[in-house]
């Protein structure tokens, strides 16, 4: 059997695979956090809760109404995105003129409300969500066995992440968005409805988190607290990538997922903290983050 550093190749490859899957979720979530922060100056602590709501949307859709995986992939992000829009209109928009820390605190409170309520209804234990039938099974690649669903998750998130990056960095709509982050009053003077753009961006970022939640539902246990510690990892990813840098958060997310996977092989005890340690090192060497400009 082939080994690298005394570890069987197959173990390393399958952990790499798991790392990429986790990294896909990090990428999609930190992308949303970065976009929302870039435009609104709000660090969305509830992002993990929205991710959880997305997964619950799929689970409850199946259990209560028999809605399958594919419709859920659209429906759940739409519903959760709408919740996000309502919250932005009701609460967040009153805080834009204040210190951004207030946005962090409000979304932290919202996350507590969402997670606590669902915990009361469904308990803390996880429930499993079936893998859609087309994507069950595995491919034997010769050197490793690849579960099809995991390959799909990686593919889907890479496509979604890079599409979002493309839209924001390379299209006219994206140029308008970026202009709004630079100078909103001026853009408004050009006749563009900036508040509407802000609310749609927030809804979009939240929907992205919910989409990640639906994608994650079949590979993890769906539980009310599934996003609680994830959101902290996502924050670390965003800090490492450079706050507001979209490419930084996508590449950072995937890369850190892989590093975390390797750590699981080499020194499992450290796998939970490796991202935070890397964050500390990056901050010492390059305080603005790897892709950040300052």
């Amino acid at each position, binding site marked *: 059997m082939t080994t690298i550093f005394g570890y069987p190749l197959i173990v390393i490859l399958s952990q790499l695979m798991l790392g990429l899957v986790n990294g896909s979720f990090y990428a999609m979530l930190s992308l949303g956090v970065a976009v929302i922060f870039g435009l609104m100056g709000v660090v969305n602590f509830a992002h993990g809760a929205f991710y959880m709501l997305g997964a619950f949307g799929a689970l409850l859709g199946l259990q209560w109404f028999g809605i399958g995986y594919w419709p859920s992939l659209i429906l759940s992000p739409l519903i959760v995105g709408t919740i996000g829009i309502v919250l932005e209109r009701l609460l967040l928009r*009153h*805080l834009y003129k204040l210190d951004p*820390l*207030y946005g962090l605190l409000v979304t932290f*409170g919202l996350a507590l409300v969402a997670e606590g309520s669902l915990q009361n209804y469904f308990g803390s234990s996880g429930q499993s969500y079936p893998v859609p039938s087309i994507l069950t099974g595995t491919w034997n690649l010769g050197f490793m066995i690849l579960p099809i669903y995991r390959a799909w998750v990686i593919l889907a998130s890479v496509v979604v992440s890079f599409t979002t990056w493309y839209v924001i960095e390379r299209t006219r709509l994206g140029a308008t968005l970026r202009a709004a982050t630079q100078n909103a009053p001026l853009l408004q003077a050009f006749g563009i409805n900036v508040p509407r753009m802000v609310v749609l961006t927030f809804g979009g970022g939240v929907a992205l988190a919910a989409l990640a939640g639906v994608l994650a539902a079949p590979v993890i246990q769906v539980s009310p607290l599934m996003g609680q510690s994830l959101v902290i990892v996502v924050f670390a990813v965003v800090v490492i990538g450079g706050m507001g840098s979209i490419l930084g958060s996508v590449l950072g997310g995937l890369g850190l997922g892989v590093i975390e996977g390797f750590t699981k092989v080499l020194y499992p005890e450290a796998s939970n903290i490796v991202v935070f340690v890397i964050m500390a090192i990056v901050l010492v060497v390059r305080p603005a983050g790897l892709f950040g400009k300052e």
Partner: protein
Amino acid sequence: MSARLTPILYAVLLVLAVCVPLLGVYPVFVMQLLCFAMFACAYNLLLGFSGMLSFGHAAFLGSAAYATCWLVTAQHWGTVPAILAGVAVSAILGTIIGAIAIRRRGIYFAMITLALSQIVYFVCLEAKFTGGENGIQGVPRGSVLGIVPLQSDIAMYYFVLAVFVLVFLFIYRIIHSPFGQVLKAIRDNEPRATSLGYDIGRHKLVAFILSAAIAGLAGSLKGLVLGFATLSDVQQSTSGLVILMPLIGGTGTFFGPVIGAGVIITLQQYLSDRVGGWVTVIIGAIFVACVMAFRRGVVGELIALVGRKTKTS
């Protein structure tokens, strides 16, 4: 509040605090309240007076609680040396985390402290001496330097109260020292403080370490009062609670954090019997309500009210 009234108010509160055991209030509850009030005051030193919002203060409370409980239980240290060691641990941790976090400001500072405190959480979860999910239990209270035994709740209560009053006076001293004035200057206008020649980084770091050390003292005492240290002491939800306390009472006011701690701890105790798991939801809703409509907090609103009255009269 007018300058003449304040000392009288504090004297009345102190007399009340001394009489608590006679009033038939459960002393362990009041001790817990005092520990959290101390924690909140330590936090307010950072948030209210230096303008730094740390989202990882549970790391200091918890690490000191674990250190003290482990030293007393497994190493049979005396109570006072174990408390001092706990404070030292949290101060060292504060130096490391502070030195990294003060490289950034505002929202970044919050996210960095949150991430770094998560390292402390996972270390406590996985290290051998912390007892994992069970924590350290059955911690004896010992005695003050072999002279005053602390087994009885009454003795422990007066010990905690004495420490609390000393800490409160110490924080008062810091705030009203030249060092504290510089901190407030940094909070209000950092570029101006820099241009006046103050070493911003060093002042912020010292404030952070002081806050971490006092938070640690609160953690050590809490561990001894309750007789255990658990993961909830280092969890991010605890870091969230200690932000909420000064926020309710009034950030940057002197007595606000104590009121905030009182409100939250009483709510927790009172509600957990009645509504069970809904406590988290209620705390979250209070968080939202405070930020949306009540940013000055109880004491802040009172000061504003008195200020308005004296202006009109």
